[in-house]
């Protein structure tokens, strides 16, 4: 903090202990349960995504409704073929009626020796050497995800974590506050001091959406693909509009989750990666002093 700023602050009589230079405050940000379930969840979701991509690769077409098989119109598909005119393999991704070439990324990828490989998603992104193993991994990790998630939800409910940390404060829900928070995000400006002691409102709303909408939707749409589970809960068909729609929604939701993770990681990098990583490992989080400008 510049000396002139300090003078200005003291002249206005607003100087506080928090505004003193080099004064850092260390808080206990994350409880042990939150930290443990966070990292277990990361492991589960990573392996779920990778094995899920391998399962998708076996039938890289998505449909809408109750049935779907080769020949039925797709809403999304990835394919690879050899194009005799271009004299090379071509990967094609199709969304609805719109298709574009994705050679090298989707449909046709290249192996370690540069050889072209067929397969919707590239080999490095998948887990499970065949469909049987991919399914084994997917379902094992699904169990771990459900057990871990249940522990987190029970803890969140009874420890006050949801109420205290995730529910937006009434002040945060004012339109003016939300607008300024969006503006701060766009300027890549991060809260300091008192404001940094709680999640900002965009963060809270995003976490709530992921925890209470996106992840349950992934789980429920996944269960809708099970002929055994749907015999007990047939309403799942009505909820998602059929087994194939559920499969499509499962895929879209997984992509949205991946998008969330990417934004989450970028935000961590922008907001003090070391401090945030430490807080999610040891719980200790350093509050930077407030700007007095």
């Amino acid at each position, binding site marked *: 903090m510049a000396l002139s700023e300090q003078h200005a602050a003291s002249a206005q009589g607003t100087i506080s202990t928090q505004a003193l230079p080099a004064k850092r405050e260390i808080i206990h940000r994350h409880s042990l349960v939150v930290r443990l379930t966070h990292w277990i969840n990361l492991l589960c979701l990573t392996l779920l995504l990778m094995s899920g991509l391998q399962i998708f690769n076996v039938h890289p077409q998505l449909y809408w409704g*109750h049935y779907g098989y080769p020949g039925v119109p797709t809403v999304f598909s990835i394919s690879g073929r050899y194009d005799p005119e271009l004299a090379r393999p071509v990967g094609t991704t199709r969304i609805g009626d719109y298709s574009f070439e994705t050679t090298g990324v989707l449909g*046709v990828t290249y192996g370690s020796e540069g050889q*072209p490989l067929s397969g919707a998603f590239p080999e490095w992104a998948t*887990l499970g050497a065949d469909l049987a193993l991919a399914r084994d991994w997917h379902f094992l990790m699904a*169990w771990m995800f459900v057990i871990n998630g249940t522990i987190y939800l029970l803890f969140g409910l009874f420890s006050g974590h949801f109420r205290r940390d995730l529910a937006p404060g009434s002040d945060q829900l004012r339109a003016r506050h939300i607008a300024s928070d969006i503006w701060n995000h766009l300027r890549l400006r991060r809260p300091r001091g008192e404001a940094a002691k709680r999640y900002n409102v965009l963060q809270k709303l995003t976490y709530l959406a992921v925890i209470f909408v996106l992840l349950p939707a992934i789980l429920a749409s996944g269960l809708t693909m099970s*002929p055994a589970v749907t015999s007990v809960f047939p309403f799942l068909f009505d909820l998602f509009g059929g*087994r194939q729609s559920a499969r499509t929604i499962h895929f879209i939701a997984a992509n949205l989750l991946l998008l969330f993770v990417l934004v989450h990681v970028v935000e961590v990098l922008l907001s003090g990666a070391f401090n945030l990583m430490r807080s999610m490992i040891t719980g200790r989080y350093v509050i930077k002093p407030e700007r007095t400008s």
Partner: protein
Amino acid sequence: MSRIITRRRLLTTGAAVAGTTLLAGCDRLAEALPTRPLLDFGQMLTYRAHRLLLAGQPLVREYAPEDISPDFPTNGTAMPSGLGYFDLITSNFANWRLQVDGLVQNKLSLSLDEIQQLPARTQITQHSCDEGWTAIGKWTGVPLPHLLQMAELQPEARFIVFHCLDEMTAGDFYYESIDLFDAFHPQTILAYGMNDAAIPIRHGAPLRLRVERQVGYKNAKFVTRVEAVDRLNPFGLGKGGYWPDRGYQWYAGL
């Protein structure tokens, strides 16, 4: 359409060459670590949880005739090889018989006509392949519980094995097995009719299993013998089915 066993098909000039053994780093790691017991534990968890969840033996959703899908993909064997099956087709299965034996009080040997005289059940259900596609078809057949009651299971019987006519590789005939919980489910039938006609060859003529709460490969086609047993290890490679012997889940309710 046969099951994809090889991980990747190598795209060469025009032709796809099967059998590349390239594995991603994660798969190498998974193979190097003793992950199999962990994966088996996951399977056991699913099996136990589903048995609890399905304890009330609910029926799977049955669809209306207008919901039947325009086509129904052929998976696995489209036409069993060998002269034996050829003879069966040419005689319109007149010489075909279903054997019901193993741990039963009354061994049965039934012709197709005799099976069609038994009480029948018709159901329009969704067939879900573990590969991800699904189709809806109308199946008519004899409820397996009825056949098993006719044969009277011995108390030691725990599983029902379905022996099939299609030879997958030399000496390896397709087979599948289910436990009594699934065998006595009201929608578990041995179907001879599909979409109001005789079941087509590509869908398992003259008789195929419908076990509606499990995925496609459990629904054995070309069934010729139903055997009640107390354990599964004497058959095939010991895992209770042609695909389970090749790494696929024996209990495949999802």
